[in-house]
């Protein structure tokens, strides 16, 4: 039996969140026969502005729940209409990006539907009975757990960057507009003031990412990561430990509590490879690790393991490239 999967299309700043496409690509790769539909909530204006972008999504159908109260995201308002739609649409599986808004909306929606929910998954499978097997890091990224649910739809949020986007020739066949009868105005709260933050450029899919950990021994040495990145036009990244020591900005953290990355080449200087770091780098095409400890976990996970002092190699690289 072919399974039906409903994907929540998240809109942020009038754009479709990248994780939406990542989820669609992943479902296609784990079950090519699945019927994949999308659902989004927005106002009329956003709907017309997005129509071209929406038509490029490789989905069977897109349901657009439209109302003027959906112009900005508010959890309780969105949850009410989404839950109502899901109750009528009865998909086997429901997936949403584990963005900040997604992790707010999903539990409220699941609670309304009295169904189970698995948070922030980094891997999914669909078995022959159309059950979703959702895998996520837990215990601070020290353990992985595969979770199943006995309620329908099987519902999970998916970590942004966990899956790669695959190009697809198919585009959406049909867009269905729905006007919810009672869009939940009673839940609206008042936003007195909103200061948007500058959009940080998405660096997680850069071609080359160069990263540093405690093996670099000092903040001064960590600065060399930035220097090398400037020279070779790569993006810098850091481990949680390096960030906790104040060597780098939290926005460039890679791992369970940071970003998941998918570069063509990942170069790790002085990183031992704690599990919570490894879950963030698994989508790298090629990993080069430089570490004095031949037995460090990252040395087994890398394509190329260079047994050497990270600081010295980094300095030599800068000298050669300058």
């Amino acid at each position, binding site marked *: 039996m072919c399974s039906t999967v409903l994907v929540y299309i998240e809109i942020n700043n009038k754009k479709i969140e990248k994780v939406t496409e990542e989820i669609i690509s992943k479902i296609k790769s784990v079950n090519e026969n699945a019927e994949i539909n999308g659902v989004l909530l927005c106002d009329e204006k956003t709907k017309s502005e997005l129509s071209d972008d929406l038509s490029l999504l490789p989905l069977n159908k897109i349901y657009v729940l439209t109302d003027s109260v959906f112009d900005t995201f508010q959890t309780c308002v969105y949850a009410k209409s989404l839950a109502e739609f899901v109750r009528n649409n009865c998909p086997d599986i429901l997936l949403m990006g584990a963005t900040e808004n997604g992790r707010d909306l999903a539990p409220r929606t699941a609670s309304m539907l009295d169904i189970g929910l698995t948070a922030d998954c980094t891997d999914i499978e669909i078995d022959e009975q159309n059950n979703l097997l959702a895998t996520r890091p837990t215990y601070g990224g020290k*353990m992985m757990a595969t979770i199943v649910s006995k309620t329908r739809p099987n519902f999970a949020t998916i970590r942004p960057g966990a899956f790669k986007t695959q190009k697809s020739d198919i585009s959406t066949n049909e867009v269905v507009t729905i006007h919810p009868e009672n869009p939940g105005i009673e839940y609206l709260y008042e936003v007195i003031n909103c200061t*948007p933050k500058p959009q940080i450029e998405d660096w997680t899919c850069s*071609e080359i990412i160069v990263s540093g950990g405690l093996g670099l021994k000092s903040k001064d040495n960590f600065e060399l990561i930035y220097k090398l990145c400037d020279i070779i036009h790569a993006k810098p990244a850091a481990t949680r430990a390096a960030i906790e020591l104040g060597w780098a900005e939290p926005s460039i953290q890679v791992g369970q509590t940071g970003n998941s990355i998918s570069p063509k080449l990942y170069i790790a200087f002085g990183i031992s490879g704690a599990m919570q770091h490894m879950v963030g780098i698994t989508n790298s095409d090629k990993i080069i690790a430089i570490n004095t400890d031949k037995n460090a976990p990252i040395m087994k996970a890398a394509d190329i393991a260079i047994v050497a002092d990270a600081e010295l190699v980094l300095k030599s690289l800068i000298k050669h490239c300058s």
Partner: protein
Amino acid sequence: MKFNIIVCIKQVPDTSDIKWTKNNTIQRDGLDSILNPYDVGAIQLAKNVKYILKNRNIDVEITAVTMGPPQAENVLKTAIAMGCDKGALLTDKKFSGADTLATAYTLSQFIKEVIPDFKMIICGQQAIDGDTAQTPSSMAEKLNINQITSVVALKEINEAYSLWIKDTKTATEEIKSGFPLLIATTLSNTEIIPNINGYIKAQKAVIDAYDANKIKADNSKIGLSGSPTQVKKAFKYEISRDTMILEDNNIDNCAEFIINEINKCRENNV
């Protein structure tokens, strides 16, 4: 009338100190239990509310509640030492094995039965063991009240409404809401050092215990049987690739090798 605040807290294993057994399971013996760091932030916000309202002659009572085994009483005493007024322990063998939905139901059932006239619930946004951040939103829905998550500060509060600062990756917002209301906070580095009076109060405190009957819980919605999600397997994460090991005492050779790889990567994209 009393202004009742409920702070939901959780006793969690110290995840910075996890060890593995030979069978690839987590070694639970000897694992230290701590108060979830985000819940300390929640207690601090509750204290801030109490402080401001006290100056307006409003009587505020903060009740810390947790669900867990009898020894979870410790975490409630910690909360009292930190400034909460009372502790409530939801403890029953039937509660065990609860996922976020069953936990949210159990907590909401306690609130409905015991403190139905509450004004505010404050939670840590997530617990460091599960990191799901699902229970607060799920509980707000069960109580049919509004929620504000990712809260980092209280800006203003009076008997009619409150103003909160919500901080996310995309924006900083100031949000106004009446009561009742659920707040989830992302403050995880708050430190509250109890004073001597706090310790004495905690020592003397009698923690009220509640089982499934006492909160009139529907047995099909609590514990393992009320939990739709189940862990099918747990495992240690390992990536293993065919690794080429390069051991060369000449650092420059190592550097040149990497440059070659960088160039290969660039060429493939032309």
